[in-house]
C-alpha cells in the first residue's frame, strides 16, 4: 500500500517502525505505517493537516503516553529493541530520543537552567565545571552561544521566538540524544529565524538521526534527504526527497506537492 522507492541506498536503521497503527479511543489515527529512520539523513514527514504525521512522530518517543485514550499497535524499535516492550524505561527512551515542539517552550527559568536541567536530572555531569561545559557545548551546537553567553542567567522566556526555539534544540542536545524529533519547529517563526533553524538542522545532520515534521514543502525540500508523504493516517510514499518532489510515483503525492490540496 505504501510506495517505497526502490533506488534508496542501503542504510542501517536507527529507528524502525513496523506495521504501526495508532488509535485515539476507537478512531484510527495512523494506519499500518512501516518506515526506517537512518542516522545519515534528515527524514521529513509531510502531508496535509490532520494526516497523522505529528501523531506518528510522537509515537517515536512515546510522548503519546500522556494521552490516556491513545493506543499503539505494531512495533517500533530503537537500535533493534522494541520501545513499547514492557521492560522499556520511558525516561531513558526520551533521553535517547529528544524532541523539539511546534511552539518554543523554554522553561520559565534562566537560559543556563534550561540547558542544565536535562543533564542534571540524568546525572550526566559531575560538578559545576562539567555542567558549565555541557551548557556551553550545547548552546554552541545550537548556534546560540554567541548571542547569549553574557546573559546565561536571564530568563529563557525573554529571548525572541527564534532564539527560544534554538534554546529548545540546545536543551534537547544537552542530554546527548541519538535521535531528535522536530514537530514543525519553524511554524511559529519568521523567515529569518526559520533560515537559522534550517542551517542548524543541516549542521546537526549526521551526528543525530533527525526527523522533522513540516507543513512547508519547501522546507522539506531544503533540509531533508528522505521524505515520507502522509495522507489520512497512511504513509503514502517514501523516498529520496528529490524524487518525491520531482518524480512522485503516486497520484496523491503528485496532487499534494503541486498544491491541489493540503
Amino acid at each position, binding site marked *: 500500500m505504501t510506495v517505497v522507492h526502490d533506488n534508496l541506498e542501503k542504510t542501517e536503521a536507527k529507528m524502525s517502525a513496523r506495521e504501526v497503527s495508532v488509535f485515539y479511543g476507537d478512531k484510527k489515527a495512523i494506519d499500518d505505517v512501516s518506515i526506517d529512520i537512518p542516522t545519515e539523513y534528515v527524514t521529513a514527514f509531510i502531508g496535509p493537516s490532520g494526516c497523522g504525521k505529528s501523531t506518528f512522530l510522537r509515537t517515536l518517543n512515546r510522548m503519546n503516553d500522556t494521552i490516556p485514550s491513545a493506543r499503539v499497535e505494531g512495533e517500533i524499535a530503537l537500535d533493534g529493541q522494541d520501545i513499547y516492550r514492557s521492560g522499556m524505561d520511558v525516561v531513558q527512551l526520551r533521553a535517547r530520543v529528544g524532541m523539539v515542539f511546534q511552539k518554543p517552550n523554554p522553561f520559565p527559568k534562566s537560559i543556563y537552567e534550561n540547558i542544565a536541567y536535562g543533564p542534571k536530572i540524568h546525572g550526566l555531569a559531575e560538578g559545576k565545571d562539567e555542567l558549565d561545559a555541557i551548557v556551553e557545548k550545547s548552546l554552541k551546537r545550537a548556534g546560540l552561544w554567541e548571542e547569549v553567553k553574557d546573559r546565561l542567567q536571564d*530568563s529563557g522566556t525573554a529571548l525572541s521566538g527564534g532564539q527560544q526555539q534554538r534554546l529548545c534544540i540546545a536543551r534537547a542536545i544537552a542530554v546527548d540524544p541519538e535521535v531528535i524529533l522536530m514537530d514543525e519547529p519553524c511554524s511559529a517563526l519568521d523567515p529569518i529565524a526559520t533560515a537559522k533553524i534550517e542551517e542548524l538542522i543541516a549542521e546537526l545532520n549526521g551526528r543525530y538521526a533527525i526527523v522533522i515534521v513540516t507543513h512547508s514543502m519547501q522546507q522539506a525540500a531544503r533540509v531533508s534527504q528522505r521524505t515520507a508523504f502522509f495522507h489520512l493516517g497512511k504513509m503514502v510514499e517514501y523516498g529520496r526527497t528529490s524524487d518525491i518532489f520531482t518524480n512522485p510515483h503516486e497520484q496523491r503525492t503528485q496532487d499534494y506537492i503541486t498544491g491541489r490540496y493540503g
Partner: protein
Amino acid sequence: MSERIAPTRMPAFEARLKKRYAAERRFKALGLSAILFSVAVLLFLLGTMTLNGIGGFQRVELEVPIDFTQAGIAADSSTMQQPGAVQALEAQGLRDVVQFFAEEHLGDEAASQLGSQAWRDVADAIADDPAILREQASFWLPASANLASGYQGEGSPEMQALAAQLSERDQIAKNFDPGFLTRSDATNPQQVGIWGALKGSILTMIVTLLLAFPIGVLAALYLEEYAPKNKWTDLIELSINNLAAVPSIIFGLLGLAVFLTMFPNLRSAPVIGGMTLALMTMPVIVIAGRNAIKAVPPSIRDGALAVGASPVQVVFHHVLPLALPGILTGTIIGMARALGETAPLLMIGMRAFVATPPDGFASPATVLPMQIFLWSDEIDRGFVERTSAAIIVLLLFLLVMNGLAIYLRNKFEKTW
C-alpha cells in the same frame, strides 16, 4: 450616476457612534461609583473601629505614690528573678502596703475603688527592678470597673461624683495600657487582655495551615496529574466542591463528633480547633490548587517529559513551582476565612472562659473572633471599647497573614 456615500460616513452611523461612546462613559461612571462606594463603606468601618478601639487600648488608672522606705518590704534580686516572686511579695503584705498608701493619698472612698488586682502591677514593677524598694515611686494603678465607668460619665451618680473629684486633683486618668496586649481574658474589663485569644488564634492557624496546605496541595496534584478521568474522580471533584460550600457549623459538629470522641481530653484545645478548621479550609485549597495546576501550559510538561523527566520530576520541578502563586492565593482565602470563623469552634468548646494564655497546642484556648463574640455579649460598658480593640487586633493579624502570603506569592510568580 448618484454619488454613493460610504456607510461609515452616514449620519445614522455617527449617531450610533455617539451612543456607543455614551454607553462606555455610563459604564465607566458606574464602575467608578461602585468602587467609591466600597471605599467609603470600608473607611466608615475602619474609622468607627479605630475611634472606638483607641479607647480599648487604654484604661482608667489612679495615681498611687508609694514610699517603700516606710513599707518594710525586703527583696533581693535573686529571688525576684524566680517564678514565685509575686507570691513572695504578697506574703510580705504588699497588698496592704498598696492599700495603705492609696488611702493616704486618695482618701478611703477612692482607695476602696482601686482595682482588686492593682497590687500585682506594683509587684511586677518590684520584680523587674528591686532597687525601687529603697526609694519613693509613683504608680498608675487600674481603677475598679465601677469607677472606670463613672469616669467615662456612666454608672452610678456616686461614682461619677467620685471620679470628678479625683479628676480635679489629677489623680485619675485614662492611660495607654500596654498590658492589653499581654494579658488574657478576665471578668473585669479593666483587667482583660487579648494575648490569650491571639495566641490561641496563632496556634490554631498553625495547625490549620500544617494540615490543610499539604493535604490540599497533594490532593490537587494527584487529581490533576495522576488520577484517571472517570466517574469516580468526577464524584470526588463534585464532593470537594460541595464540601467548600458546607456551612461552617456543620464542620464544628463533625469536629465534635469525630475529633472530640477520639481525643476527649483535648476539649477547647487549638489542635482540635485547627483540625476542624482544616477540614473547612482544605476544599478551598484543593479547588484553587486544581485551577492553578490546570493553568500551567501543557507545553511546559511536554518540554520536561521530552528531556526525560519522570512524571514526579515534571510535577515537582515544573508544575508545582508555576502553580504555587495560584495555590497561595487560594490558601490566603481559605486561611482568612478560617481565622474569622467562630461557629465551628463553638461546638468544640473553644468558647470557654480562658484566663491564661494557652501553653501549647493541647491546652484550653479561645480564638480572637470568639473573644470578640464573648466580650460583645458582656453588659459592662468597659467591654465595648475592649471589643473594638480586639477587632483591630484581629484585623491586623489578618493583614499580617495576608501580607506574608502575598509577599510569598509575588516571590514565586514567574512569567512565561
